[in-house]
């Protein structure tokens, strides 16, 4: 962006320099001149011929006050008789009055101190047709100005540029073009700077940590105030005071610029701040002290010093930006580089090393560059704002996620806690049952005289334990259940001297049994094994287990004497066949019993998984 601005400025500058050739215009390069404060071209004294532009610093270095110029011209040929003529004067410093053929036709303002200050303003004087009645028209111009040593800037030293006479429309165009660049642009940019500066000040006030915004805001406003010297003609002070006031306005602006650059680079230096403040006070004091005759020399020295300060600050900023790899090094570098060049150019003109330009680039290019930096600051601020917004949104999301997570965890924790409390309570009940009911049943088991009661109590105890485990039990892996059943069954049969042949599937079984299914199946199996041991008289027992997707099956076969079928269901003789079937039915499975005298017994149990 600053690169583009630079190109724009260069293009405008080129147009400004080249757009000045006019065929019909008459350019007056020489005149008679005489130093005089009279109201008309003096009749006494000998006017000396002088070449225009007449720079007083060269032609009359000690003169303050008024100089009369006289030039004669013939109405340019090739113009229609009714074409209006105008006189265009690029520069008459500080002010001028124009007489045509002895009649005053134009005044730029007050000619006595405090004089009107029009050094930077081009002048357009319409030459009334009625007065152009002579073959040779006489143009008397009175210029009021100051000696170079009595002003602080070369641009405000007395002098008169070449005079151009031509068609009014053409001269007006020329005038307007020059006036636009010298005055209007400065005004427009001034308004913009004031607005931007105010805006930045408000931003810095809201956002105290970014103090460079404040410095820059004051820099913009200060510059605008400074630029008043260019276009505001009516100052209520005589030249000496005016010049000191103008000079005194520079140090605060330079101070703001230096502080802005340093703080933007992240440097805060108290000595620098104090020095800048001292400078603000020293400049007016020193200029007042040296007296009117040395004003230009002292002011030039101060300007040189301030330019050096500014360039040093630019260098410090750019060095730090380079070192910290700041991504705005190049745009800022180019902009600040241009600023440095402008300042050096200005200093060179001040010292007379470079010819003075009609339009001072400092006056319109410098604020443009300031505008560029201001826009850049706003852009950075805007981006930071956007980033902050994005961060805020992210943060909000994270907070929401974290909240959700906490709530979820809390819910899980509560569920877990309920589970734990429930489990604890279950265990307590189970322990109570064991201690109380279990102990009583146990006593009955081991103290009862009757074998039948003892057996009943043992079974009741077993029931109780299985019930308690059914309450507290977790799901059991089918593989573990089969292993438990096998171990118990083989051990029991072995103690009864019955040969056991139990084979489990070799596959890894991942199915789970609910505690209820495990408990009930255990009972069924125990009952079946008890039957074999007590009643079958078998010498061999074969058990096979099978598992498919929906069911698991147990096949228990013995080679005993079998059960008479007609007895089954009617008397049961304690064989528990009906309870086995009932339990299988409760589990939505089935228990089939095949038996016959002499054939042994086959029990097929099928339970859904």
């Amino acid at each position, binding site marked *: 962006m600053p690169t583009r601005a630079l190109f724009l400025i260069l293009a405008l500058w080129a147009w400004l320099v080249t757009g000045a050739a006019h065929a019909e215009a008459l350019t007056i390069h020489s005149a008679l001149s005489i130093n005089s404060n009279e109201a008309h071209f003096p009749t006494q004294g000998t006017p000396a011929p002088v070449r225009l532009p007449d720079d007083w610093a060269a032609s009359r270095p000690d003169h303050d006050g008024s100089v009369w110029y006289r030039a004669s011209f013939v109405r340019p040929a090739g113009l229609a008789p009714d074409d209006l003529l105008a006189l265009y004067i690029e520069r008459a410093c500080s002010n001028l009055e124009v007489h045509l053929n002895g009649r005053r036709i134009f005044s730029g303002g007050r000619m006595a101190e405090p004089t009107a200050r029009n050094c930077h303003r081009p002048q357009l004087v319409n030459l009334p047709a009625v007065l152009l009645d002579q073959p040779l028209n006489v143009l008397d111009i009175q210029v009021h100005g100051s000696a170079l040593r009595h002003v602080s800037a070369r641009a405000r030293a007395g002098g008169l540029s070449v005079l151009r006479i031509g068609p009014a429309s053409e001269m007006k165009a020329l005038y307007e073009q020059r006036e636009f660049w010298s005055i209007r642009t400065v005004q427009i940019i001034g308004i913009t700077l004031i607005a931007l500066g105010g805006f930045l000040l408000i931003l810095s006030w809201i956002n105290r940590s970014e103090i460079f915004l404040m410095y820059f805001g004051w820099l913009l406003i200060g510059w605008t105030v400074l630029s008043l010297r260019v276009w505001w003609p009516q100052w209520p002070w005589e030249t000496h005071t005016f010049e000191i006031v103008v000079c005194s306005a520079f140090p605060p602006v330079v101070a703001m610029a230096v502080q802005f650059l340093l703080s933007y680079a992240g440097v805060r230096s108290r000595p620098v701040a104090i020095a800048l403040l001292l400078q603000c006070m020293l400049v007016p004091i020193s200029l007042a002290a040296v007296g009117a005759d040395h004003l230009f020399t002292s002011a030039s020295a101060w300007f040189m010093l301030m330019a050096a300060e500014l360039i040093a600050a630019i260098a410090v900023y750019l060095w730090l930006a380079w070192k910290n790899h700041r991504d705005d090094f190049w745009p800022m570098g180019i902009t600040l580089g241009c600023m440095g060049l402008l300042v050096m150019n200005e200093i060179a003109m001040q010292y007379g090393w470079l010819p003075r330009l009609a339009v001072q680039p400092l006056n319109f290019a410098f604020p443009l560059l300031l505008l560029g930096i201001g826009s850049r600051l706003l852009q950075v601020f805007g981006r930071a704002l956007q980033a902050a917004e994005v961060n805020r949104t992210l943060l909000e999301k994270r907070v929401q996620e974290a909240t959700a997570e906490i709530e979820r965890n809390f819910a899980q924790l509560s569920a877990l806690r309920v589970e734990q409390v429930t489990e604890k309570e279950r265990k307590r009940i189970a322990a109570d049952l064991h*201690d109380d009911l279990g102990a009583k049943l146990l006593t009955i088991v081991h103290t009862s005289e009757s074998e039948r009661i003892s057996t009943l109590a043992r079974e009741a105890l077993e029931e109780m334990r299985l019930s308690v485990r059914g309450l507290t039990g977790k799901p059991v892996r089918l*593989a573990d259940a089969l292993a438990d059943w*096998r171990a118990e069954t083989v051990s029991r049969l072995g103690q009864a001297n019955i040969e056991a042949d139990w084979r489990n599937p070799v596959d890894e079984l991942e199915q789970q049994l609910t505690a209820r299914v495990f408990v009930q199946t255990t009972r069924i199996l125990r009952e079946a094994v008890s039957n074999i041991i007590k009643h079958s008289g078998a010498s061999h027992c074969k058990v096979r287990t099978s598992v498919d997707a929906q069911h698991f099956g147990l096949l228990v076969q013995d080679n005993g004497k079998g059960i008479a079928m007609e007895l089954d269901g009617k008397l049961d003789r304690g064989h528990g066949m009906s309870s086995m079937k009932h339990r299988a039915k409760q589990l939505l499975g089935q228990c089939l019993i095949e038996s016959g005298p002499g054939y042994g017994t086959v029990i097929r149990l099928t339970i859904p998984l």
Partner: protein
Amino acid sequence: MNNILLLEDLPEIRAWMKALVLQVFPKSHIHEAARIHDALELTTAIKFDLALVDLGLPDGSGVTVVAELRENQPEAQSVVVTIHDDDDHLFPALQAGAFGYLLKEQSRELIAEQLKRMSGGEPPLSPSIARRVISHFAAQSRSKPPQQAHAMPHVSLTDRENEVLLRVAKGYTLPEIGVQLSLSRHTIADYVKQIYRKLNVSSRAEAALEAQRLGLFRS
């Protein structure tokens, strides 16, 4: 079997147990206790060969007595006699150093048979207890951080012991495993005893470490 400790709080059951033990070991002296406190007092005075310890007692869990005997009378065989048949009760007792367990409601004959076998050096081992032992050692070898490895006595099962445990966990009885591995009953029994011993040692080491860790946290 000379001195036998009988720790049981229910008088009827204690009497019944005493009769049963006298039937198995007719020449033994049976020292009865109804509370842990009494039992611990007895252990300071008498050297026991066998201790029958109930778990649920009025003043705590019999595991305390098992651990005490393991610590001070390593020759004494502790056998847990309980109404609880679940791993949550049995496994801690085995970890504390119990040599076996009996379920109280079993018939007199069965208990007598098991007592005889245990005194003959054949500890019982059910599939569910075997699974607990396997997962205990697996968890220990997983959780052991390298810097603590040296602090902890190196307790791990041999391949043969693992083999026996795995087969028990699958539901094979010890005699069956003996046949499968072509080993004698005694050798298998020795493996099981060794497994119990290692379970106790590793459990104690674990407990010591845990205590140390808690102590560190507290300080």
